[in-house]
């Protein structure tokens, strides 16, 4: 990315160590650094258990780093976690909905938690419900919604406060093709509106389709961080999957 687009996410020497059974230390994230800018999709590519989710949980301030820091929109996740949370939208298959609330109540609740004024919140809700065609099930309880409907409610929940940074943690895991498409289209739309998007996945197709730059993470370490074309160039076949396997094998680290 050129220097004209501002950096939104700056990760510096980020590490996260968990205490495992028998006081064994597990390095889930090991000295990871990268930068992501407004108007780009930064893909975090890695196998299951590579450290993608932990990295994104630290970025969204759910976990605090053992070492290093990350700044989102200039705010440190260590020192100003609430300011960071105000400016991010977080979406993953783990972020479920409250089944006993209706779609409308769910969205209003999170708008209030973001401190939005009632009138502005209602206007924003209407705009988004119309955009995603959700008026028909606005007053249906979330546990009665189909997977696709639920995903739409989750999307609205995550962009309600118009965040500068969107973080997606394997947002399509376990979803069917049609629902996945909604998500993919939404991610592209975020980029078009100048958001900085961090997108983790283990699906090579999605990387191909979406990402501007890719960080390959394996056993907690960032093996490469480069534009998509540069990553492709690592494999004779110029396919992302092959490039990924080549990278992991040459690194020689066991997960």
């Amino acid at each position, binding site marked *: 990315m050129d220097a004209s687009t501002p950096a939104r996410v700056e990760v510096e020497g980020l590490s996260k160590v968990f205490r495992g059974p028998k006081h064994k230390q597990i390095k889930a994230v090991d000295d990871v650094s990268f930068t992501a800018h407004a108007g780009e999709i930064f893909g975090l590519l890695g196998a299951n258990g590579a450290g993608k989710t932990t990295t994104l949980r630290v970025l969204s301030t759910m976990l*605090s780093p053992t070492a290093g820091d990350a700044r989102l929109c200039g705010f440190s996740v260590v020192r100003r976690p609430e300011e960071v949370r105000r400016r991010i939208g977080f979406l993953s298959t783990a972020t479920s909905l409250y089944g*006993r609330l209706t779609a409308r109540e769910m969205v209003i609740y999170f708008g209030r938690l973001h401190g939005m004024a009632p009138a502005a919140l209602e206007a924003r809700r209407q705009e988004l419900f119309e955009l995603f065609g959700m008026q028909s099930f606005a007053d249906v309880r979330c546990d009665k919604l189909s997977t696709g409907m639920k995903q739409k409610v989750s999307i609205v929940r995550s962009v309600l406060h118009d965040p500068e940074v969107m973080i997606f943690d394997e947002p399509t895991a376990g979803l069917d093709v049609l629902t996945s498409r909604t998500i993919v289209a939404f991610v592209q739309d975020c980029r078009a509106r100048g958001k900085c998007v961090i997108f983790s996945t283990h699906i090579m197709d999605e990387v191909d389709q979406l990402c501007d730059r890719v960080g390959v993470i394996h056993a907690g370490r960032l093996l490469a961080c480069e534009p998509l074309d540069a990553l492709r160039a690592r494999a004779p076949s110029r396919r992302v999957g092959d490039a990924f396997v080549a990278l992991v094998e040459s690194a020689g680290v066991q997960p």
Partner: protein
Amino acid sequence: MSAVGTVFRKELLDVLRDRRTLLFMLVIPTLSIPLMMWLTADLVTSFMEKMARKQVDVLVLNAEAAPDLVEELRQRSNPMGLALQLSRLLESRGLTEKDLSLVKGEDPRAFERLLTARGIDRDELMGEVRGLMGAQEFEPNVASLIGSAFPPNFRVVTELDKDLGDPRDPAQREAVLLQAVRTDRLGAAVLLPADARERLARGDTAELQVFYLDSSDRSTLAFKGLEGIFRSMGKRITAERLAERQLPPGLASPLKLKPTRLPGPGLLIKIMGQLLPYMILIFAFLGALYPAIDLGAGEKERGTLETLLVAPVSRLSLVLGKFLVVLLAALVSAVLATVSLGLSLQIGFLAELSLLSGGTFSFSFLEGAMALAMILPVSCIFSALLLALSIFAKSFKEGQSYAGPLQLVVIMPAFVSFLPGVELDWFMASMPVVNVSLALKEIFTGNLDQHWGHMGLIFLSTSVCAGLLLWAAAWWFRREQVLFRS
């Protein structure tokens, strides 16, 4: 702090839409008390009644030593003849055996109140009773009415089945009788001394040995019946001996006790003093249980915790909002239980009891406020504890399994209000939960003015304890190891 309000409103709505919570918070506290009362009071008394009416065999050994004594026993223990007529008379006036047993140990005023409540004219009834009994050896009071009407139903026998063995043989007597009682062929046995007639004739005492089995309800009941019958017979013999010698009738009973209850808190107040603290503590805990598990472990199980954690509110606001909902549920449940108990007193068995004991259960504004001042901090303790456990648990099920043992920790101290002789002193006032149970007991039995110092200490110590636990729960909720256990 508006975030706390937002979280509180949402969690309350969420919890109120959960059937399980509603069941534990609203339905169970409201229904369980009347149900329990109905079961214990009505069912148990009706079983007792059935048992009392059933005929039981009583064996008399050495009957030939005093045939007239045995004949009198036979008459007095048979619901035929005079006793039957008396029972019918009372029943025709609307007085059942159960009514009379209610006022049995009470002073005559309770009996008078029973008659007033039933609209029965006392003098008229007594006139009829006296007419029936022939004015002999009858004092118009409750004890003698109960003793004479509704007598135990015995069949007096002098022989046992041969296959059981011979009860006349002192060597095998106890074994034979035990076998007979255990196989329900016998309620109890009476052994007359061989010289019974001579002893009575010369003004001496005849010792009657009664065999019964402690562990059998039927046998104990038979023993009590025999005790009553022989006491009346003894009185009759005493009266005859005195009359024969032309001595004043009071000679053999120089001192007579006349229990007179002071017009203070009666039996009902005592029962309430024992029952209410227990109920309140149990229902405060049960009311908090499901919302607490739902708002902590439930959030993890359904995967909404992460959604919530990325919202820009402090963890403290989240904990406080959730805590307030749990606390509200605990209080609603405890208050509903109290109200339901109050209403149960207006109907059925307990209404009768409260009428007869002459006191109604009520408390002043000050007592109500003090009770609330005790209930509030202890409910905070339950809510904070349960919420902390629930946040630690990974699933609803795990949360429930942690709450199980905790339930015992609450029930045991709450039970202290039932223990006789445990009084609120400085030592007891320093025991958490136990002190609240005892404080509530003192408040509800009208002894608040004796315990201001203790109450102050209990309120302060319970509040401090609740504050610490809430602080611990908030700290707990900030720990990654707790939130993201795997």
